[in-house]
């Protein structure tokens, strides 16, 4: 896939945004030394392809504004003479070379429009990461325009031009400039219009200026575009200026003298507001009075824009004289002028400063308490807005902490047996301002001093007019504190109790334990595998079990969202067994899952928790009336059903009293208005008795904001409120603009009910074997079943009648045909193309798709092995359609060059294919495909050695990821039976099976019948 890029180019005519793209292809290494001109970039699209591709993406700028352009770009390159692409791992030896490229150039006005269409967050495989930077920059530009943060200006060099200049002096905008400059993807400014231009060594300080220039150009382009000059009543000078501010290149039609005059005057105009874009600014630092004095100290100095913590006192500034001053790695030219000019602007915002500047080289001054208060309360903000930094003592530095709030101590009451949300806590509180606690009496006494800045317990704090009254009000109300309050107050900073912010919350040991588990600051207490559970739980699975039990005690719904392969099924089964062992499992639990995994559940339950009585509510023989259901449910612990039946048998299922409801593959209810989601929700909220709710999913559910509401609506409906509220408060800000504050808040809200561990987590990885094998049990579709039976019946008869010499071959042919049917009827019927409803015809394909969905979404890569080349071709076509990405297929017919290209691309291309199909014979040996973390054996070869060899393509020495091996087994079919045979007779298998599948040909007809007949799953 191609990747779109955008760079900023300073062409002689005008600065412009240039779009270009690269794509992975095989390129010949070349020598770059001694070249007189840059080489064409071997991996870039030419301008025709670029336009075509942009058109396809819907991102082609309108024709007249975009011009084709040749330009040069300095890119990190390999020593073999190939440029690196975004996302490639960096080789040890890196060189920088200029490359020649073709692109589409947009002037500033068009660029601003185009950039405004870019997504502000999210994954976009076709867009380079620097486009996100551009999108954020443009967002800022819009904000500057909306807030009117600009002034018209005049620039003289290289030619006289009128310009709209952004004002970046407000604190928030300074921070944004620093932020975007610091994070600037450097490719953005590494271009040159002139091929002769060489890569200049840029100091970090220069990036701020580059970004400021880009912002200036975009603001100018945007405002100029829609500005309409109206000359009536203006003198010639202003008329000319106004004209030049409208659409066009901004050229000023004025005599040099007039131009100069305009430039001088407007520069002053601007500088009194904004100051200059400089690497540092003046800073005033307030210090509390020493013990024996009531005079505050105000120290002068310079502060680096890039890092406000880098400061130099005025003495160092004066000492630098006319030379440079260094602030860390940042060099500040003419620091004295910078400081003086800043202090000059500060005079307008904080008048007492005048007194401090009467000396020759002032370093500090004294402030009376009243003056210090003015500084803290009002002047600090004004000073920051005129571009002067202010540093205040910690207890006064504004923000919530310096306001009146509460310090709380709380503990679960000793009488409490368990704990429920409404539980009232034992608690006490104190008032707190600026980090020091005080009593109501203290506050009264301090307020009596009639000074807004007072000293208490050694710290200076600020009292506000309403403080005393608010504190009294709280004291009078004397509210109770519930466990629910405690959970809320400890979930995020700045939460309030009766409108007072809670600055400190100290929980007693027992409450602390509850809070920590609830907020998952601490892993929940692990629970060992319960009695009656056959098998071992890994340590993280014991923690998962403990967590499920913990939330169960709170009567809170839980979503276990562990990564695929970590054993969600086992944890859930262990949880049910835990209930059973504790004699808490009194009524049946209903588990809803996609049809494709019902078989899997049944197998796993039989294996791990044989004590649990499992009933499948599925198929034509299922209970159809309430009476029949009640009868069928006698003694049953777990009922399995499908999402389809959840809808169809809704009334029947609603009528029964379940102890709990579990939904597997919970993404099935992501659409809240879908029928099956509503049915699940109705089942989760019975009128009479409480019912526990658990959802299982392997998808990163916390990142799918739109699906989160439906999930929480099922689990704990109060947590996220009504859907409309949720959409406005969370979904729009997060999905559209990637708002992290909302996302953080959302995660804090749902965090307690979500447990997701990844295979890559440090605490998990040590618990896992390096190679994890998973059996994927699947059924057969009706079409498969019919075809399977027919084939067995017809062929067995033929084999019986066949002469001995041919029998062997016919047996193997039958087995092959049956394996094909298990894969897909189309394969057995020798169909050559993928038609409508292709996936629905095979249960195995459906399940494969479900798992691949998680793989693709997680950005992982997978190898898919099959022994049937025809199946590979069909699957390739189907998967490509399904995921709209290329799926290479390496088989016996691939040429040597093709094979190498496919392997290289899979291993090297940063945006290469995620799925790679291989035929078992052609791809099983010799290849190194360590980028994959999943291996799928779609059909079985019944020779563990061959399968293992194939698996080892991904799992090799040097592989740092855990590899998940999925083996598909169709239940009731020949696949399951042979699998069982091999496992039961491991030794036999090693000897006999080692030779291939030949041994199957020698089976007796009765053995064969037993082996191939379809048994009830």
């Amino acid at each position, binding site marked *: 896939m191609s990747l779109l890029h955008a760079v900023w180019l300073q062409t002689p005519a005008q600065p412009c945004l240039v779009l270009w793209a690269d794509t992975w292809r095989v390129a010949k290494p070349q020598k770059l030394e001694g070249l007189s001109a840059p080489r064409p970039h071997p991996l870039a699209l030419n301008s025709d392809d670029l336009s075509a591709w942009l058109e396809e993406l819907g991102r082609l700028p309108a024709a007249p504004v975009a011009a084709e352009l040749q330009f040069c770009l300095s890119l990190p390159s390999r020593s073999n003479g190939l440029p690196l692409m975004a996302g490639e791992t960096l080789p040890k030896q890196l060189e920088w070379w200029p490359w020649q490229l073709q692109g589409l150039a947009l002037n500033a006005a068009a660029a601003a429009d185009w950039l405004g269409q870019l997504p502000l967050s999210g994954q976009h495989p076709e867009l380079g*990461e620097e486009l996100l930077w551009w999108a954020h920059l443009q967002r800022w530009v819009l904000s500057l325009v909306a807030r009117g943060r600009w002034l018209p200006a005049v620039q003289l060099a290289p030619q006289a031009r009128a310009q709209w200049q952004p004002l970046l002096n407000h604190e928030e905008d300074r921070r944004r400039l620093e932020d975007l400059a610091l994070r600037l993807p450097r490719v953005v400014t590494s271009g040159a219009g002139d091929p002769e231009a060489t890569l200049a060594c840029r100091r970090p300080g220069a990036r701020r200026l580059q970004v400021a220039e880009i912002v200036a150009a975009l603001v100018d382009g945007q405002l100029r575009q829609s500005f309409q000059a109206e000359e009536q009543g203006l003198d010639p000078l202003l008329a000319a200026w106004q004209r030049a501010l409208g659409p066009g290149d901004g050229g000023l039609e004025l005599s040099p003298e007039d131009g100069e005059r305009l430039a001088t005057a407007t520069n002053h105009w601007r500088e009194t507001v904004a100051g200059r874009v400089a690497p540092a600014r003046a800073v005033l630092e307030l210090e509390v009075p020493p013990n024996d004095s009531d005079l505050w100290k105000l120290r002068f100095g310079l502060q680096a824009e890039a890092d406000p913590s880098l400061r130099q006192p005025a003495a160092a500034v004066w000492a630098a004289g006319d030379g440079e001053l260094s602030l860390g790695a940042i060099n500040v030219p003419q620091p004295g002028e910078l400081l003086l000019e800043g202090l000059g602007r500060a005079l307008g915002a904080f008048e007492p400063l005048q007194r401090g500047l009467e000396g020759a080289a002032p370093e500090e001054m004294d402030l009376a308490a009243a003056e210090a208060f003015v500084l803290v309360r009002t002047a600090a903000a004004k000073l920051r807005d005129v571009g002067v930094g202010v540093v205040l003592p910690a207890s006064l530095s504004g923000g919530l902490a310096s306001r009146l709030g509460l310090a709380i101590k709380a503990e679960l009451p000793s009488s409490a047996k368990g704990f429920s949300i409404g539980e009232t806590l034992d608690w006490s509180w104190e008032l707190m301002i600026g980090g020091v606690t005080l009593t109501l009496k203290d506050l009264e006494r301090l307020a009596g001093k009639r000074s807004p800045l007072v000293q208490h317990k050694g710290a200076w704090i600020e009292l506000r007019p309403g403080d005393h009254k608010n504190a009294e009000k709280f004291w009078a109300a004397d509210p109770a504190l519930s466990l629910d309050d405690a959970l809320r107050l400890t979930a995020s900073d700045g939460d309030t109790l009766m409108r007072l912010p809670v600055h400190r919350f100290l929980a007693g040991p027992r409450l602390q334990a509850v809070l920590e588990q609830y907020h998952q600051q601490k892993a929940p207490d692990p629970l060992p595998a319960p009695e009656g559970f056959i098998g071992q739980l890994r340590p993280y699975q014991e923690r998962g079990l403990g967590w499920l039990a913990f939330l169960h005690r709170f009567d809170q719904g839980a979503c276990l969202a562990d990564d695929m392969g970590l054993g969600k099924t086992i944890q859930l089964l262990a949880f049910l067994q835990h209930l059973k062992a504790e004699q808490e499992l009194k009524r049946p639990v209903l588990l809803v899952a996609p049809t494709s995994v019902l078989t899997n559940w049944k197998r796993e339950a039989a294996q791990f928790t044989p004590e649990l009585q499992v009933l499948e509510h599925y198929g034509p023989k299922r209970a159809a009336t309430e009476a029949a259901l009640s009868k069928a449910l006698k003694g049953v612990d777990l009922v399995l059903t499908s999402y389809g039946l959840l809808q169809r048998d809704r009334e029947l299922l609603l009528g029964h009293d379940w102890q709990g409801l579990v939904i597997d593959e919970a993404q099935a209810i992501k659409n809240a208005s879908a029928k099956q989601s509503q049915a699940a929700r109705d089942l989760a909220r019975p009128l009479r008795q409480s019912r526990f709710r658990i959802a299982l999913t392997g998808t990163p559910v916390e990142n799918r904001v739109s699906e989160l509401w439906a999930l929480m609506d099922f689990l704990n409906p109060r947590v996220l409120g009504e859907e409309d509220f949720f959409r406005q408060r969370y979904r729009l800000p997060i999905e559209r603009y990637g708002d992290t504050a909302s996302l953080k808040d959302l995660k804090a809200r749902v965090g307690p009910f979500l447990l997701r561990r990844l295979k890559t987590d440090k605490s998990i990885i040590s618990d896992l074997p390096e190679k994890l094998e998973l059996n994927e049990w699947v059924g057969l579709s009706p079409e498969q079943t019919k075809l399977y039976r027919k084939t067995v019946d017809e062929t067995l008869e033929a084999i019986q009648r066949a002469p001995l010499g041919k029998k062997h071959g016919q047996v193997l042919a039958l087995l092959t045909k049956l394996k094909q049917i298990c894969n897909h009827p189309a394969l057995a019927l020798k169909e050559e193309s993928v038609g409508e409803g292709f996936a629905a015809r095979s249960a195995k394909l459906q399940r494969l798709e479900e798992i691949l969905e998680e793989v693709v979404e997680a950005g992982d890569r997978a190898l898919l092995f099959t022994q049937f080349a025809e199946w590979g071709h069909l699957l390739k076509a189907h998967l490509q359609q399904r995921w709209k990405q290329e799926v290479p297929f390496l088989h016996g017919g691939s040429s040597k060059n093709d094979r190498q290209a496919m392997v290289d691309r899979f291993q090297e291309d940063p945006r290469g294919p995620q799925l790679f199909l291989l035929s078992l014979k052609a791809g099983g040996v010799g290849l190194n495909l360590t980028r994959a973390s999943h291996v799928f054996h779609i059909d079985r070869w019944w020779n563990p050695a061959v399968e293992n060899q194939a698996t080892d393509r991904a799992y090799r020495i040097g592989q740092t990821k855990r590899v998940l091996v999925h083996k598909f087994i169709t239940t009731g079919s020949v696949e399951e039976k042979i699998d069982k045979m091999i496992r039961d007779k491991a030794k036999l298998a090693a000897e006999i099976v080692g030779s291939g599948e030949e041994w199957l040909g020698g089976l007796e007809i009765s053995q064969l019948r037993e082996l191939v007949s379809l048994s009830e799953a």
Partner: protein
Amino acid sequence: MTSSTTTLSKEGLGQQPWWVAEWMELINSYRYKKRLERAWIYAREGNVLSIRFEGRRVQARVQGTEAEPYKVKLWLDVLTDEDWEFVLEALTQKARWTCQLLAGIMPDDIERAFAVSGKRLFPFKLQEVRSECSCPDKANPCKHISAVYYLMGDRFSEDPFVLFQLRGRSRSQLLSDLAERRRQHLADERAALGMPPPASPAAVPRPDPLSWWAYTAPLDPDLVVITPAMAGSTGLDEAGDLPLAVEPRFPEANQLFLERLRQQGSLMGQLAMAKAMGAGAGP
């Protein structure tokens, strides 16, 4: 003497900085009121075609009765290097003076710095302003010169350093001289106290050079919703009046110009907010 009104301001202008007012009073002290009146009309009607500050002199062209404009030169007595030594030494003593000058304000007690040299920054009498005009009129100042006088006052408000330039020191000369003196002053002071010169803090590490393409930061939460300007907080509000001399023939021009910018700026701001609402939902 912080500020007062001027002749021009009677025509509807706001308040002038005090140093401009000072200049105007100087001109108005001229005895020949008739000539001043004609000069005022010249100035107001745009007969002064250009004013340029060239080094220590002001060069102007004034359209008189003849086809070819008259050339007017104006200059002040330049301070000697020795005088400047005194002035600079005095200027160094109060950092505030430089602060204010750099912020575009003429300190109202600036003459105290010049008093030590026995000289002045502002001319005390009109006779101290030297002038020449290419017109046939024998009188000095003629109406052409006087017309230039009027306009120069406003030029001073555009840049307080202009007066220093006329007295013989350019902005950059002045600032670099002052910086050197401050450094010296500090060194002397520290040496007297036996203190070492201040040290530089440790260097910070350079940014990772390999971040060529990478950018994964989330959008600034404050940019999620694009908000309009709060009252009085646009750049135009904060910058105030244009520091451009009013062209007498177009007394309303400065205000008109700003008013139009304000109107269109608010429209463009609304447009930007509309764009921001639709952003992020593209293809």
